Structures are given as C-alpha cells and as structure tokens.
C-alpha cells in the first residue's frame, strides 16, 4: 500500500532516528563494572542521598539557585533499556543513540584514573545492559578527555561492536577544549573505526570557560552559554587546530545546540581567517567549508515566530543533509519528534532530518519503513 502523497507526513510515515537519548546510570549500577579501588567509591555513593544529576563525586554540579515548588525541570530518568524502548515507542522513535546522564559531567574530575575508570565502567555497562540492534538502541562510546590514550583503546574495543555507532565527547567543564592536540589519539581511533564523534554538553557551573558562570543569576542565561556557547568554543578550536584537515574521514556531530548558531560561526571564522590566516595554519580552505561538512542535531529546535525562517537558517549552511533529529529524551527540554516533523519542510527534507541522514551517518542497519 502506498501513502497518499498529498497528505502531510505523519510520525509513522518516516524513519525516526533520535541522535540523543539519555540512559540514567546511578553509581550502584556502574559499581559492578568499575575497577578497584573505585568500586568502593561507587558503592558508597550508591548508599547515599542522590539528587537529579547532582551527586558529589559522581555528578558534581555547583547548584546555587534557590528552589521553587513544582517546577518539573529535569527529574525524569530512564533507568533500563526496556523502559527506554517503551518510551521511544510512545514517541514513535525507531532508533535511539544513547548518552549518559550523570556522566555528562565526567570531564570535570581532576583525578585522571578515576575518570578513566568511570568511562570504562559506563561503556561496559552500556554494552552489557543497554545496546541492542533488535531494540534499536545504539551506544556512543564515552571518550574520557582526561586520558585520551585510554579513551582511544575504548573506542577501538567498542568500535568493533556494531551496537556502538559513535563516540561521545563530553563538553561540560572540559579543559582544554576539543581542538587541543592532546586529544589526537581519540580522533585517530574514531576515524580508524569509522565512528562519528559527537560533542554534547550539559548545564553546569565550573571554573573552566565557558562554564565559569557562578556570578550569573539566571538559569536562562547560563543554559545557552553552557550549551551553544560551549559548542561554538569547541568548534572554533577544532577548526583552528585543523581537526577536520588532519582527520579528513572523521565525521563531527554537535548535539544539544540547535542549528541557528552555525552560520554565525562560519562567517565569523571566515572573517578571522581572511585577516589572520596564520591563526589556522592547518586549513586548506576557509573555515566555512569544513563547518558545512559537520552535522548538527536539532534539539533544542528553534521555534521562530515564522517557522520557515528555520529552513532559511538551515540553507545558510547548506545543511539539508547535515541536520539530524534529536529529542534529548527524557530531559526537561526534550523535543517531541512531531515538533520537528511539523516544520514547513518538504517531504524529502523531513525524511532526511528525521532519520535518513542519521541512518547513513551512523551506518545503521535499519530498514526504511514502507510509506
């Protein structure tokens, strides 16, 4: 049976690949997977009080805000693969790519061995209890920035497992930024294994730029700086230090920043490059050429008053085959796939954004649903 082409596409008419969903990993869940002596630490943490993404020594956050009642900000969690599959079914999402919850903040730990052990435990836990081709749940290998050599080994280990389709690069509290040459082993391994790297941030107050926001009163100021500004800062350093030149087959994905900042980055960097080309000696072409080849997740999708402005924005960076859907389920600022599907895009662009581009990017073995 063929679909009536005059009808608008519905959620069941398209393949939906969600490039950002979050598996909640309480300390006690990772304890069996982590090396000693850190197992003792996670066992202790597991017996203590736990607030949402706010666990000292595990998910540190400098929360300076006075609370007010009944705000539903961010207290949903998904703790099992079964729960995730059921909830993605409710949202009509066919495939989910998994990111952590608490360990979104893993880059802040000063103890290198602890951070690396946490990363290894998370990857092992994900492999053991979450990822499944049959369930459409795929993993992003957590690359611990504090120990790039160990991260590279993890990428090679799990990259050989076809249930892992990407590498997660933590952004929150990161220092130095992802353009630094110290991370070359991570990029080398990701390129070798054919896994796209995905930068992902989270709300946090921390001494490292641009998270040093302890003086800022409002959460609606901190949140976009934690996300979009952090992504921009990392993109700038990756371009300037030639990551896309030195690793030409590496695919680079930015999550949880929407898309409207991309044209600014392109044009601003081109302007700088024209004036100070020695500032990016690795580049063979203007920065915008590289930025246009990267991928950008939709969430949090911009909702302009004139919805068609979003299409204009995507076209400004030739992004019709570079924008990929993400919901950020189950976080407080998630986007329902309907919100993106109902944007004033043509059917081909809708299919690409909702799933086809991601299917190609992550080499997913999922069939295209019959329309």
């Amino acid at each position, binding site marked *: 049976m063929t679909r009536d082409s005059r009808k608008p596409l519905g959620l069941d008419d398209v393949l939906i690949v969600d490039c950002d969903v979050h598996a909640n990993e309480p300390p006690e869940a990772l304890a069996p997977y982590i090396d000693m002596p850190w197992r003792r630490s996670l066992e202790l943490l597991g017996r203590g009080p736990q607030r949402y993404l706010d666990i000292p020594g595990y998910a540190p956050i400098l929360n300076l805000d006075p609370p*007010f009642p009944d705000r*539903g900000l961010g207290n949903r969690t998904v703790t099992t693969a079964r729960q995730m599959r059921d909830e993605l079914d409710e949202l009509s999402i066919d495939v989910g790519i998994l990111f952590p919850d608490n360990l979104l903040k893993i880059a802040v730990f000063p103890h290198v061995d602890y951070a690396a052990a946490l990363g290894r435990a998370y990857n092992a836990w994900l492999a053991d209890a979450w990822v499944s081709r049959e369930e459409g749940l795929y993993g992003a290998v957590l690359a611990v920035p504090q120990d790039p050599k160990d991260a590279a080994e993890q990428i090679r280990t799990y990259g050989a497992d076809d249930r892992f389709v990407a590498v997660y690069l933590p952004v929150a509290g990161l220092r130095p930024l992802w353009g630094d040459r110290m991370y070359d082993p991570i990029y080398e391994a990701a390129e070798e294994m054919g896994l796209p790297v995905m930068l992902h941030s989270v709300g946090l107050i921390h001494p490292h730029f641009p998270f040093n926001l302890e003086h800022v009163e409002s959460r609606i100021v901190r949140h976009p700086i934690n996300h979009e500004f952090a992504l921009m800062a990392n993109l700038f350093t990756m371009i300037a230090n030639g990551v896309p030149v030195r690793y030409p087959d590496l695919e680079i994905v930015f999550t949880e920043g929407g898309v409207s900042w991309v044209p600014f980055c392109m044009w601003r960097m081109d302007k700088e490059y024209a004036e100070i080309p020695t500032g990016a000696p690795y580049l063979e072409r203007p920065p915008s050429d590289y930025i246009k080849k990267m991928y950008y997740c939709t969430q949090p999708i911009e909702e302009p008053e004139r919805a068609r402005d979003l299409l204009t924005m995507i076209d400004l960076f030739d992004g019709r085959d570079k924008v990929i859907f993400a919901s950020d389920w189950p976080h407080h600022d*998630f986007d329902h796939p*309907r919100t993106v599907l109902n944007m004033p895009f043509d059917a081909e662009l809708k299919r690409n954004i909702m799933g086809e581009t991601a299917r190609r990017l992550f080499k997913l073995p999922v069939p295209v649903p019959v329309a």
Partner: protein
Amino acid sequence: MPRIRVGPADDIQPGQPAFVRHGAIEIAVFRVDDGFRAYRNRCPHQQGPVCTGPVSGTLVATADTDWRLAWVLEGRVLICPWHSMEFDLDTGRRIRAQSERLRAFSIEVERGQVFVQVGPRSAPSASRQGT
C-alpha cells in the same frame, strides 16, 4: 451541543483536576477560587499533557513589586509537565505570553454535578459553584 457529565463538584479538589474524554479530546476540569474551569489536556507548545502538571504559583518582578522577586498566583498556575510552560488557570492564557492559551470549554454545575459543554471553540468560561 454535547454535554458531558464530569461528576460531583465536591469530588474536584484544588490542584486535582477531574478528566473526561470526548472522542479524541481529553478535558480536565479544575476547581479554582470561584468555581471551575475546563481546558483541553494539550499544551499549545509541543502538545504535551499540560493538565497533568502541578498547580502552583510563579515568580514575578514588576514595578508593583518594586522590581523585586515576588511569589504570586499561588494555586492558579498550571505548569506543563513536559517543558514547564505556565498557564493561568483562571484565564487559560500562558503567563507572560498572553497570545497563547489553552483551549477552554464551558462548564455548568447543576444540583452539585459538574458538566462540560463540548462544542465549537469557546472562550474561556467560568462557572461559579452552585450556579
């Protein structure tokens, strides 16, 4: 115009709406200070189940509060559980964005029973208890 019985007025307590269904439309009936309000359980933002959210108050800072934070509208602010968008239960309008509103339905209370009038789009309407 179809009329749906919701139930005894005394069973609908503040912050605990009663839900009824008319075809695909789910409607929540809230008790407010002077009676009841009925709204469709669908948020105008991303169509979340807005009426299942908590009823609380909100923060404002206006010239009337000397630009200092004040907690206002206690018991009148419906908060969508999906993205925390806030609506004034009295008017159905989104707080701080008056052009957006919940779809409202008329209410009648007869002999202690609450009824919702389900018909074409109706203005936010109130029914005082016992009228």
